[in-house]
């Protein structure tokens, strides 16, 4: 089964720190790599996404770094704030040919930002 391996499981940083969450995948056919943010009791919400044709993408304080040869990608949160405390999921998808962008998710990282 296609897998996306995510680490660490949990992460605690001080306000202003730069948490880094890593993901690795096996299927080289994956062509879309989103990160989702989930607060307790809520559904996941798309945070930022990247395609394999670029090595980095920034949106505000969030940056994805992508290493195609290593089949790894990571999320960096600059100047982290207590409001960033949430569970973060990386994911990957492939156009299955039937038009289905079935997402394969990592197991999630619970981030706590301490004031």
């Amino acid at each position: 089964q296609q897998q996306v391996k995510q680490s660490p499981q949990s992460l605690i940083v001080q306000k202003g720190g730069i948490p880094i969450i890593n993901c690795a995948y096996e299927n080289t056919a994956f062509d879309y790599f989103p990160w989702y943010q989930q607060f307790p009791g809520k559904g996941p919400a798309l945070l930022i996404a990247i395609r394999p044709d670029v090595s980095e993408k920034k949106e505000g304080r969030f940056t994805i770094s992508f290493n195609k040869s290593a089949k790894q990608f990571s999320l960096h949160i600059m100047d982290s704030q207590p409001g960033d405390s949430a569970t973060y999921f990386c994911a990957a998808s492939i156009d299955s040919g039937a038009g289905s962008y079935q997402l394969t998710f990592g197991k999630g990282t619970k981030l706590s930002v301490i004031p």
Partner: protein
Amino acid sequence: GAGVSQSPSNKVTEKGKDVELRCDPISGHTALYWYRQRLGQGLEFLIYFQGNSAPDKSGLPSDRFSAERTGESVSTLTIQRTQQEDSAVYLCASSLDYSTDTQYFGPGTRLTVL
């Protein structure tokens, strides 16, 4: 505008009973997905609907699970003869169409099987 809505938000049932979970996608979204999220785990794909095409059922874990969608609107996920291992949060997502990657998730239905 309104996001994806799901009902009920919580459902407690007894082992062996059938349950129905409902999803209302964002208006105009033709693609609809169901995922399952077990405690401490990532989301597992269950099923995908796109317009009037045959659904992609490749993620359904057993024949006790089924889903329907009426046109491009409401979808229901049915779990028959529920088991304790079915306890999870069931999430629905929709996207504009099959060519759009961005999926918008609902808040989920937390199912507890006693």
